[in-house]
């Protein structure tokens, strides 16, 4: 609205036009567009080019040695079609399981008279604080077929030969990933259920429809488009996830796309096949793009006004009658299984003398010695420092960049603002592993051309995370900015406040909850995300906590994993609570995460 006026600044007497400022203001949006384009296009370009490279290693890359060999190898030798099938089963299974669980919880909290709703409402989103890798590890500790606490106890008690449940299976994968999807799905579903106008249901009832038919013909029909959009969104999350299949599937060669790509370059004992990894990643990316495209099509029209029309009615609560207590029981069980249990398992592992079945004797060996061991390693100090710097830098960069992009898209008449909007959503469909691989190629080439050492630097991770989390941040920021009426800023300008004062005194305070919310959420994601750092980690300069947990786990250093995991989770819970207190997850984040 107001940009065009404020950028064409000239002095009061009109004699000294500030040409430089004028030009800068005019080209700034183009520069931002170019930056976003570069952030997306450069890695993808190097990924695709790498997929055609027949050289064995990225630094042997040469234009003379190109061909379709990698695609052939991936399809025929590596049987990527099987991976495709596995991925489909895993993604659909996890999404269906996760969304149904979240929908039941959201319905209970929003539309029923279940007792103790508030606790469930506050508790479910805290699940965001449990990093996927720790989730997966705690499931292994409980349910691995031979040594899992639960399976061992079961075999001991019943004398059975086989385990109760083997987590290293497709069902295990679906179960673990499904549970992990619930918190965000819940946050997205709650506003949807809340915005249901009860008069629509009442109208159906008055027209003579039975409660069952009303639910089916009106309630479900109205919710369907929203639920579909949220499901696709969650399917993208499941598709891109690496931690769960990496811990639960990879050890038994149960591969989905993300682990297969990783496996091609990090397979211990085999020669890394970079070109093939790229070819597989290109398939992977294509699938993610197609799914994202459908998502974008689905939400393009609805998204913009879902929030603004949120009227303040309280839908009628459905009476559960005798089912009230089973309902709260089930909801509490969910909280226990998805949040409390992983914490308890890791706590036990971090305190017990050596890894064994929980028992009275085991409790007697409790001590803090594993924590001491962890802190006595010099490596840990550096990793902590790296993690904290990475988190601070990523969160700040993403917040600042998304602010600028959202401002240009929402508040200016910049010609290419729609392009910028769409382009900033693109990275949403790039899986972490794919981006890691793409950046790996790009940085290796860049370093060998310039002699710099970007590969293995912390900065490379910051760039990677910025690309990965930008889409989410821009969405949340635009939604918040749309809600700030442009007149509020115009009024300040008319009061004689120059643009930077308007930004400080009006815009920033009004957007503060969103800015802080996005910052914290990105910080949490930066700690949780391990796929990208796994590929880009090189030496101690950019090793972060997630990567360290991964390698400790693979080396069987389980007690240390427990100790680090407990500290990490505590920090994450603190961040998640701050986020809740800001009310962020409830409004802005809920619809756009």
């Amino acid at each position: 609205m107001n940009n065009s006026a404020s950028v064409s600044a000239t002095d009061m007497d009109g004699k000294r036009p500030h040409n430089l400022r004028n030009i800068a203001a005019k080209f700034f949006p183009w520069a931002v567009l170019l930056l976003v384009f570069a952030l997306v296009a450069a890695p993808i370009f190097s990924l695709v080019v790498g997929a055609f490279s027949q050289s064995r290693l990225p630094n042997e890359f040469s234009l003379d040695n190109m061909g379709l060999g990698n695609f052939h190898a991936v399809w025929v030798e590596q049987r990527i079609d099987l991976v495709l099938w596995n991925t489909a089963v895993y993604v659909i299974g996890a999404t269906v399981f996760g969304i149904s669980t979240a929908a039941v919880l959201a319905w209970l909290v929003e539309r029923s008279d279940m007792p103790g709703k508030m606790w469930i409402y506050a508790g479910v989103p805290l699940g965001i604080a449990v990093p996927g890798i720790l989730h997966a590890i705690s499931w292994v500790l409980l349910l691995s077929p031979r040594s899992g606490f639960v399976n061992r106890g079961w075999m001991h008690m019943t004398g059975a030969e086989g385990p109760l449940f083997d987590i290293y299976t497709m069902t295990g994968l679906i179960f673990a990933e499904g549970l992990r999807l619930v918190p965000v799905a819940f946050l997205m579903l709650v506003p949807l259920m809340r915005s249901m106008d009860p008069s629509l249901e009442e109208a159906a009832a008055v027209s003579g429809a039975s409660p069952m038919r009303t639910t089916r013909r009106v309630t479900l029909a109205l919710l369907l488009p929203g639920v579909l959009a949220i499901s696709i969104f969650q399917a993208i999350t499941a598709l891109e996830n690496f931690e769960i299949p990496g811990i639960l599937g990879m050890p038994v060669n149960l591969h989905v796309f993300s682990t297969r790509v990783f496996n091609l370059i990090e397979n211990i004992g085999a020669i890394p096949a970079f070109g093939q990894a790229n070819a597989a990643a290109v398939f992977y990316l294509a699938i993610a793009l197609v799914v994202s495209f459908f998502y974008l099509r689905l939400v393009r029209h609805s998204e913009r006004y879902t929030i603004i029309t949120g009227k303040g009615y309280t839908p009628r609560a459905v009476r559960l009658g005798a089912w009230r207590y089973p309902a709260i029981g089930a909801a509490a069980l969910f909280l226990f299984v998805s949040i409390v249990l992983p914490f308890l398992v890791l706590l036990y592992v971090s305190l017990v003398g050596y890894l064994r079945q929980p028992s009275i004797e085991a409790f007697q060996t409790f001590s803090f010695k594993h924590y001491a061991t962890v802190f006595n390693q010099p490596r840990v100090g550096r990793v902590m420092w790296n993690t904290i710097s990475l988190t601070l830098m990523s969160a700040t960069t993403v917040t600042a960049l998304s602010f600028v992009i959202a401002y240009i898209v929402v508040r200016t008449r910049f010609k290419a603002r729609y392009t910028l909007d769409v382009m900033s959503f693109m990275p949403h469909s790039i899986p972490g592993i794919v981006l890691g691989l793409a950046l790996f190629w790009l940085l290796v080439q860049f370093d060998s051309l310039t002699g710099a050492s970007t590969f293995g630097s912390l900065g490379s991770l910051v760039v990677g995370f910025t690309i990965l989390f930008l889409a989410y941040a821009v969405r949340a920021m635009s939604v918040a900015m749309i809600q700030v009426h442009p007149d509020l800023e115009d009024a300040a300008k008319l009061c004689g406040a120059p643009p930077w004062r308007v930004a400080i005194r009006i815009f920033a305070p009004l957007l503060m909850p969103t800015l802080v919310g996005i910052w914290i959420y990105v910080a949490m994601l930066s700690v949780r995300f391990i796929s990208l750092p796994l590929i880009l980690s090189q030496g101690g300069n950019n090793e972060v906590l997630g990567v360290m947990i991964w390698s400790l786990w693979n080396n069987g250093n389980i007690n240390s994993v427990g100790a680090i995991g407990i500290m990490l989770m505590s920090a994450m819970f603190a961040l998640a609570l701050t986020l809740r207190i800001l009310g962020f997850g409830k409004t802005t984040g809920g619809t756009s995460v």
Partner: protein
Amino acid sequence: MIEIDNLHVRFNSDKGEVHAVRGVSINVAQGEFYTLLGPSGCGKTTTLRCLAGLESPSEGRIAVGDTVVHDSAKGISVPTFKRDLAMVFQSYAIWPHLTVFENVAFPLREMKQKVAEAEVERRVKGALELVQLSGYESRPAPFLSGGQQQRLALARAIVREASVVLFDEPLSNLDAKLRAETRLELRNLVKRLGMTALYVTHDQTEALTMADRVAIMREGVIAQEATPTEIYKRPVSRFVASFIGQCNFAEGKITQPATASGNGLIETEWGNLAYSTQGRDAKEEVSVAVRPENVRLADATTPADTPRITGKVADIVFLGECLECKVSLGQSDLITRLHPSSAVAVGDAVDVVVMADDVALLAV
């Protein structure tokens, strides 16, 4: 005080170019209360926003006081915050994160020379008193009623003592009664402070009661600019006549031109009409407009040289302060407004007259 010269604004939207303002020129004198009136979407807000520097014109020149704030030809454009203006927004634009006091104090705190805290307090108190909001200082701004928010927006606009104040439909969010009360209060306040006001509205009553001068806008151009009385009595076009109040229209031909010494005559579909506006030739085809309240029943006091029109009362509607009658004249109708005590009934044959001064000749 305000000089807008040949202003053009074109928007590039998804559906192509929108030429929202097409050559508007406005001159507002020091201390004048000037109103822009027009139907929705005619470009009033756009014009106002150009003046405030919130919109950049495609063409034209704007001066406030002695300062040229915009000149497309010379590439001059003074940013909004350096213009000596205050504005009351249609949405009020009250900052929700500030208290009532801080909302009003904002313009003072943004002044070039720092205003001492005691002075800020004094001026804010004064402004709040003027709009009768004393005692609400520490209230968070969102906890005000619609009328109070409107007055707060006004206080914020006057506290700075800018020489020009712009209003964008500031009363449109108020209920009818409050709007009627606020109209005159607002005008008196602006006059008392000696400010020059440019007031945008689509409500004709507001325009007629508040303004010193009214400009009627249509599709980005000014259709007529005059005092409220002049605009009401001598509309230049059908659009202006029907936009302000109700009107009877007819086509006709001058049979005898009006001169300084006597009225002329027009032959219309209603019958003959006397008229007094000079400068038209015999045989000229003209359109005439007559307000319903100027169509009267002929009685003993009616001058003999005023032609009478005979018709039949076809319909009567009781409106409280008057009777609205439809007089059927064969092919055409005349709407008249009569005093409620008039003894007419449906089916009566009546003679009506229109005084020569009440016949407006339309330019188009």
